[in-house]
């Protein structure tokens, strides 16, 4: 296993003038599971392919265990990749698919056989070794693709949205299996996905990308609790964080939302003082909004109530503004549309964002 370091990696396509990836830097520690998360087109796949050697690096440095990899071809980087479409050779059996990469490396046949059998038993593929890909289910194909990577015993594992082609139920199962595999192998893994649930549950750390740039890097829960900008704040978490237009009072100790005011204290008050203008966006996650009275309350008009069984999502508009917000209430909610409800905000979990720069204050 090894460390993987990206130092200001950038990619520009010669045909197009825009840059696909700009200055991506992070280090994946030995044995760490790092997730590259972002919407489609954000550059995460391009970054992964640069690490793999399938795309050339325009500028920046790529290091694996301290050795510079920029000019080394993919096959010499000692990495293995699991593709979104599995990329299994349709004309070969599972056994041959697993052995294919090894045969190239002048490895004795006995060694190849040993590795293939070990990988097969780890992944439960023993009864399938003589089948061809078209006779396998989606989940089984996924495992073969994994097996192909495992037999290589690489320094780094790369994953390109491997679960996207599976149906929802299978995805949940495979997530657990991949995490278990990671623990068993203590492998260094770089995992690309657009699914934030995968990122939150599987990653030791996540790196969120937007428009070719790194937006934020950190442990999942840290990023969740302290997003660095509006994009990260709304990307993680479902339903997304509420962002309400608000105005800071002249002394920066009061926040006006609609026709109401909230007294600020603690870190939020410090943030208020730092703000460059008095127009801000107030961020609070739906689960941090409770029904009833408390320290910081607002009155809001109930717009819609969606009972989901385990919880209820309530859409409200605070009095004096037409901006909408969501509240998550465990079990049931007694209010009805067009009624005025009292809700409590957990100020400790709130954030202020600067509308102009979109950064958190």
């Amino acid at each position, binding site marked *: 296993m090894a460390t993987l370091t990206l130092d200001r990696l950038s990619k520009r396509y010669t045909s197009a003038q825009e840059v696909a990836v700009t200055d991506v830097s992070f280090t994946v520690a030995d044995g760490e599971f790092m997730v590259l998360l972002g919407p489609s087109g954000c550059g995460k796949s391009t970054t992964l392919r640069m690490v793999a050697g399938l795309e050339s690096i325009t500028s920046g440095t790529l290091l694996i265990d301290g050795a510079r990899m920029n000019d080394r071809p*993919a*096959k010499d980087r000692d990495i293995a990749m699991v593709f979104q479409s599995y*990329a299994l050779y349709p004309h070969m059996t599972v056994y041959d698919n697993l052995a*294919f990469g090894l045969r*190239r490396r002048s490895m004795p046949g006995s060694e190849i056989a040993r590795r293939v059998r070990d990988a097969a038993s780890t992944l439960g593929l023993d009864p399938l070794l003589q089948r061809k890909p078209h006779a396998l289910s989606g989940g089984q194909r996924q495992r073969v693709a994994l097996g192909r990577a495992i037999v290589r015993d690489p320094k780094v594992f790369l994953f390109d949205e491997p679960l996207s082609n599976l149906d929802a139920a299978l995805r949940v199962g495979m997530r657990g299996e991949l995490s278990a595999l990671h623990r068993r192998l203590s492998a260094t893994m770089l995992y690309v996905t657009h699914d934030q649930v995968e990122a939150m549950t599987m990653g030791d750390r996540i790196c969120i990308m937007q428009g070719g740039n790194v937006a934020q890097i950190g442990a999942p829960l840290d990023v969740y609790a302290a997003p660095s900008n509006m994009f990260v704040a709304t990307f993680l978490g479902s339903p997304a964080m509420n962002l309400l237009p608000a105005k800071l009072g002249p002394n920066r100790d009061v926040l006006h939302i609609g026709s109401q005011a909230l007294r600020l204290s603690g870190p939020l008050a410090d943030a208020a003082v730092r703000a460059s203008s008095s127009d801000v966006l107030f961020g609070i996650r739906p689960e941090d909004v409770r029904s009833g009275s408390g320290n910081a309350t607002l009155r809001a008009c109930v717009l819609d109530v969606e009972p989901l069984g385990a919880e209820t999502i309530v859409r409200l508009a605070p009095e004096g503004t037409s901006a909408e917000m969501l509240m998550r209430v465990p079990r049931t909610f007694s209010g009805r549309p067009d009624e005025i409800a009292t809700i409590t905000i957990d100020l400790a979990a709130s954030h202020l964002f600067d509308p102009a720069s979109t950064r958190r204050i």
Partner: protein
Amino acid sequence: MPAILTRAIVMLLLTGYTAFAAGPFVWAAMMSLRTTTEISRNHFGLPFPPHWEKFGQAWFNSNYSVYFTNSAYVVATAVLVLTIVGAMAAHCLSRYRFRGNRFIYFLIFSAIIFPPQITIIALFQTLVTYGLYNNLAGLTLVYIALQLPLTVYILESFFARIPSDLFDAARMDGYSEWAIFWKVSLPIALPALATTVILNTILLWNEFLYAVVLITDEAKRTLPLGIQRFMGDQLEDVGMIATGLMIAIIPIVLIYAFFSEKLIQGMTAGAVK
């Protein structure tokens, strides 16, 4: 008109058309087993007794075996080389993006509609200059060039549909571009390759114009030329000619018997829009 009656009329017409379509061959097959004397008495009689020895006579007493082997040699060599060269070009054009790719593809593709007349005179001149005139090797080369455009066209569209992840994975596994072609592209494209092989074999087996221009030696004639010569030689020996015809079409009939579905699909695939 009641449905049953319409059905019956339709079936009658269809059967009539089948007689029209298959009739000539059945007639020739029957005549191939009858002696010419029997035939001149009644051209449409049934072959009782069937004279199987005529096939042996046709093969050994005339130059039929020579014509047949010449054709077999030329067609087999041409199709083999054609398939490999065409597959290499198709693989390259469909998988690599480079300037001039589409231009080259269009150049090759457009040659499919070239009438043979535009090249035949100059080919004659060229082959004479290089001593390849009246030479089976020369004819083979011409045949390869003749079917190359169609082969590249069919294979290119097939190769293009192979997902590129397979090639990325193979590259990461350490395979060179050449190894990827042999170990990944070709095996996956086997169905399309089979189609082009069958198609080219039939088209070249039956090819006449280039052969008649470029081959004049009796000993080097291909089968279509041989049949024409056979017809000239035997003149009114209808029975013998019929037997000769049957021998000529046997390879085709065999391919058709075993691969009719594949053959039909291969020959008609491009035409459905």
